[in-house]
């Protein structure tokens, strides 16, 4: 599936939730079940420091696509990371660099990606795109 197909799929899934708490229960589950980042990568080099929560991000290129793994100390942040990874990981570098992440807005989580929230997520998305740009120019 391409990036936008996955975004639309997530939007459809979230349409089923009746209220905020259900939505967050799902995000928390995603966070708890996110495959862990390799512990050796949870270091200063991979750290994106937010004021509220912190994020670790690692990127690997594999057959002209990029694989992301990530972690956070806050489980809701981690759940949103799981969604971002589902959308972007395994995609082509060029697609990642050029994509517009509209699903966050559509499922009502924009506040978590507001620059003033300072939970590391905005910088994480920027970082994912930077990796994509870098890999693109490498290949």
């Amino acid at each position, binding site marked *: 599936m391409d990036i936008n197909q996955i975004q639309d799929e997530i939007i459809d899934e979230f349409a089923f939730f009746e209220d905020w*708490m259900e939505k*967050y229960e799902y995000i928390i589950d995603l966070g708890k079940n996110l495959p862990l980042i390799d512990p050796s990568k949870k270091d200063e080099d991979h750290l994106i420091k937010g*004021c*509220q929560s*912190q994020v670790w991000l690692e990127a690997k290129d594999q057959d002209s696509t990029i694989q992301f793994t990530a972690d956070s100390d806050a489980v809701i942040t981690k759940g949103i990371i799981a969604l971002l990874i589902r959308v972007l990981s395994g995609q082509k570098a060029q697609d990642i660099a050029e994509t517009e992440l509209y699903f966050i807005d559509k499922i009502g989580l924009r506040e*978590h990606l507001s620059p003033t929230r300072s*939970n590391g997520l905005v910088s994480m998305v920027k970082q994912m795109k930077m990796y994509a740009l870098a890999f693109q120019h490498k290949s």
Partner: protein
Amino acid sequence: MDTTTERTPIRPFEITEIRRDFPILFREMNGKPMVFLDSAASSQKPRVVMDALVHYYEHLNANVHRGVYKLSQEATDAHERGREVTRDFINAASTKEVLFTRGTTEGINLVAQCYGRQFIKAGDEILISGMEHHSNIVPWQMLAEQTGAVLKVIPVTERGELDMEAFDKLLTERTRFVSIVHISNTLGTINPVKEIIDKAHALDVPVLVDGAQSAQHLAIDVQALDADFFVFSGHKVFGPTGIGILYGKEKWLEAMPPYQGGGEMIKTVTFEKTTYNELPFKYEAGTPDISGSVALGVALEYMQEIDHDAIQAHEQDLLQYATEGLSQIEGIRFVGEAARKASVISFLLEGAHPYDVGTLLDKLGIAVRTGHHCTQPLMDHYGIPGTVRASFALYNNREDVDRLVAGVERAARMLR
């Protein structure tokens, strides 16, 4: 001028009526009736304060202190009345000692720079504590960098109190200034500032008291405290944002150089030499926040009208009720358990990040603050990334506490 005799009769504290004074309490947040528990960051405003702002712009707006026309005189009177009300509120000896600032932060920066540049030299020690807000750390670090002075820190105990034995040792003949928070914004601890001031004065060391939190909760008497400087913000005492107060003893304000140059603060200007205006105007360059000073006066009068002992009893009841309610929740850990506390509760849920707890409470309509509360060194001391903080003001009630406890219980279940 003593206005205590003219003061409005004390209004009994009746929580339902108090709440009606604050229209914002009746709005919804995320589809739920809002519970506002972040008054330590900024308090809500009573209707009279909003009315004062509108009234000022509708009837009084003109620049102050210079106009020969009637309107400017009326604006000046209203502005200076705000100063007089503030003087009375903190029981300063004179309005010369009451300076308008933008807030607590600016007040501390003003003292650090003006007192510091005049009186602090390389090797001198400035004493603060481990529970200071960043705004009572960074200005002194800047001064230390400029002058070669050294910053010393009074440690905080596990319960969240100042280690007074350590203070006794840190206060020496090298100490040139003490700057200390009255009530910790993160822990709620009420510090023994009177004792600190007395001990510092015994060595001729002046003391600044950061009253950002205390002005909302305690009756302030700068003369009884014998504080050299006392700073607070208007928006935390039910007034508007953008205005604050720096109280300073006249002898210091006379001896210090001015902060910023410009209009208002001068007597005469030639290209060769400028002479400065008298107190308090010497420190008030530029057009002041006139609507702010007017409305701040109204906010302080609002507080003074209500039976203060009853407000304190109410806030202490909320603190106790909330502490009891929250302590029933499995895995809760309080950060800050001082013997003397204002109505501020910081806590953590085992296995849950403060950001997660705050996010879920928000969706339940409950406004709390999460994070390090601009006290990163204090968080490092406890080895935690931050806390969830609920703070109660005079307009909160037991239902607010019930909603908080139920919300935290629910968050705990979801995050476990």
